[in-house]
């Protein structure tokens, strides 16, 4: 075991995957010599050569479109979109092409690729470096969507995503790169180097896609969270003294409905939390599934705590970000008899 930041864990995942399979290649804007603006690909070009890790022109459409062709050829591209906010020019390639290639060709052509992108807010990134577009991917048949919340999961899930025979969107909560940010922006964050979840196996290992993890056990209420919100939920429970259970979804699609349903059947209460905007967000899908599958166990309506239905603001970041205060209010309301 080695103490790693989430950045190092992600780099280690690609390092191990590239060492294990020469079909794995890495490319994107600034990922080669420089090692990526967040350093997630540091050292890969030096170790594996520019034939397998290289810089691209600034064209997200081009990066994803070329990766689809490479995957169809038989390589396993693991590509980086510098910020999830820059993904939109490539959206047609992701939705109409990568997600449907296996289906429309009846399995003649497939698209085993991973599209990594930093997601979420908390870094004063304004509207173009803070978005959480996960629902735009979970709505697409044929894509898988993963959001890790800590270094260990990030590494195991990323290697599993690279092994996966279908296209996987891998969203990296950028506010978690260096430590488990809990929403208290005025407090120092404990770095991953001093955190139990920063202890990561140095070698090759996978965590299965499609399985949630009970981040913290509890019986009073179920909090469905992923990414940064897992740590916001943890802080909120400490501060409110509520014995809640936190489910870290880890993979949004395919979703681990069994783990969710078991927890809600136990607690009878459920709060969903995410950074993305409310309307038609992934929380809407979770709330619908919980009422459909756990209706007779519910004591209270399922509540959602999310970003507001506005663009992500700059100066007012902490009024936008769904931190422990907002989540705490929702939990207290949900706990009322």
């Amino acid at each position: 075991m080695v103490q790693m930041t989430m950045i190092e864990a992600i780099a280690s995942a690609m390092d191990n995957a590239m060492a294990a399979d020469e079909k794995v290649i890495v490319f994107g804007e600034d990922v080669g010599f420089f090692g990526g603006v967040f350093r997630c690909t540091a050292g890969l070009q030096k170790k594996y050569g520019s034939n397998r890790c290289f810089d691209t022109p600034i064209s997200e459409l081009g990066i994803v479109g070329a990766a689809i062709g490479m995957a169809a050829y038989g390589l396993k591209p693991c590509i980086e979109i510098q910020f999830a906010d820059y993904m939109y020019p490539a959206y047609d390639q992701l939705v109409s092409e990568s997600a449907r290639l296996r289906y429309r060709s009846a399995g003649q052509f497939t698209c085993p690729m991973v599209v990594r992108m930093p997601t979420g807010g908390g870094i004063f990134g304004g509207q173009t470096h803070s978005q959480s577009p996960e629902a735009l991917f979970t709505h697409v048949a044929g894509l898988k969507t993963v959001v890790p919340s800590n270094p260990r999961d990030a590494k195991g899930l990323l290697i599993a995503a690279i092994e996966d025979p279908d296209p996987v969107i891998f969203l990296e909560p950028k506010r978690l790169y260096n430590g488990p940010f809990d929403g208290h922006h005025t407090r120092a964050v404990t770095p991953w180097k001093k955190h139990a979840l920063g202890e990561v196996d140095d070698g090759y290992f996978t965590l299965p896609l499609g399985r949630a993890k009970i981040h913290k056990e509890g019986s009073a209420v179920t909090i469905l969270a992923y990414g940064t919100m897992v740590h916001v939920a943890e802080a909120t429970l400490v501060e409110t003294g509520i014995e809640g259970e936190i489910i870290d979804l880890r993979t949004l699609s395919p979703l681990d409905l069994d783990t969710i349903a078991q927890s809600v059947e136990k607690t009878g209460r459920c709060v969903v939390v995410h950074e993305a905007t409310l309307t038609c967000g992934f929380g809407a899908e979770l709330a619908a599934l919980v009422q459909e599958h756990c209706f007779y166990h519910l004591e209270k309506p399922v509540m959602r705590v999310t970003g507001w239905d506005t663009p992500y603001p700059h100066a007012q970041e902490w009024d936008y970000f769904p931190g422990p205060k907002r989540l705490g209010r929702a939990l207290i309301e949900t706990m009322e008899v």
Partner: protein
Amino acid sequence: MSDNCENKHLELHIPEPEWRPGDTPDFSNVVIPKAGSVLRPPVDVDAQDIRDLAYTIIRVLDKNGNAVGDWGGLLGDEELIAGLRHMMTLRSYDARMQLAQRQGKTSFYMQHLGEEAISCAFGKALNKGDMNFPTYRQAGLLIADDYPLVDMMCQTFSNTGDPLKGRQMPVFYSARDHGFFSISGNLATQYIQAVGWAMASAISHDTKIAAAWVGDGATAENDFHAALVFASTYRAPVVLNVVNNQWAISTFQGVALGESGTFAARGHGFGIPSLRVDGNDYLAVYAVAKWAVERARANLGPTLVEYVTYRAGGHSTSDDPAAYRPKSESEQWPLGDPVLRLKNHLITKGAWSEERHEQAEAEILEIIMTAQKQAESLGTLNGDKIPSAHNIFEDVYARMPAHLRRQRQQCGV
């Protein structure tokens, strides 16, 4: 500010085709370079030195049916007769499928009328293992590679024999073993994918190359430009084909092109060697394709090729060209009919005759009718022999996730 700018209002330029229904098309002002007049450069030529090839038209067959100039002479009589038969097969197949659509046996069809030479000849320039990323008007690639007609028909009819299990609209074939990538309906998306495929071949130190296909209208899509950027940056082993058939449904090519330069000349800004060829001249198409393929294979990078042709039929069975262009435009088109031109060439050479042509036509029709009978025995879209509904849920992922298993159950299949 000078005074003469005062009171001058700006005006937007909207390109318009020269002729609309009711007009008499007159192509006499269109300069068609003489067959054989364009020299064939070595494949390792610098793109700078052949800029003129993007503004001319490379032609081999002259109006008397002779093959002239140094782009000719690559194919023997037997190969040319085979090429003629491929084009005739494609035309005959199209006619039968067009009719089948009118009879309600399928929902939709797209024919190649006037454009047969391009895909039929290009297909012969590739090797086994190379990959085309075609649009919906390159089925000649399949025919020239002896893909079974019955399978094409089963796809078109979406019947129980459909290799794509009823999931794709008619003519959106996919045939990996025949170097034919699955066709998308979103235009130009596959242009950049072809470049990626070619890059993968180079990364893997393979010998295979890719061919990208797009129409004149869809060159306006971002994907086309991203493809040119990536192809030139990484010198990908890819042939970038633009089929300029003059019409994007009802929109003439000047709307995508902006009435200046040529589609081939789009390659110049990227330093990509770019050629313009007579798309209705089987020999010229083959020669230019061969040249571009050779360049890619020799690791010399991409080539952009514009095929100048004319879409003699409608865009699809849902389209009526009489609503936006003169009916006689296709007859007036100065580059003639590709089947007739190759036929005349072979007759001029003494390798073919009217009798043999008629005989071949009858043989081909017989082959197609037999195939159609066989395909129809497996069903048509308006019958009850269509692929089972359980195919809706398969191949979305390699392994079916739980939510799709639940939905399949709800669907009752």
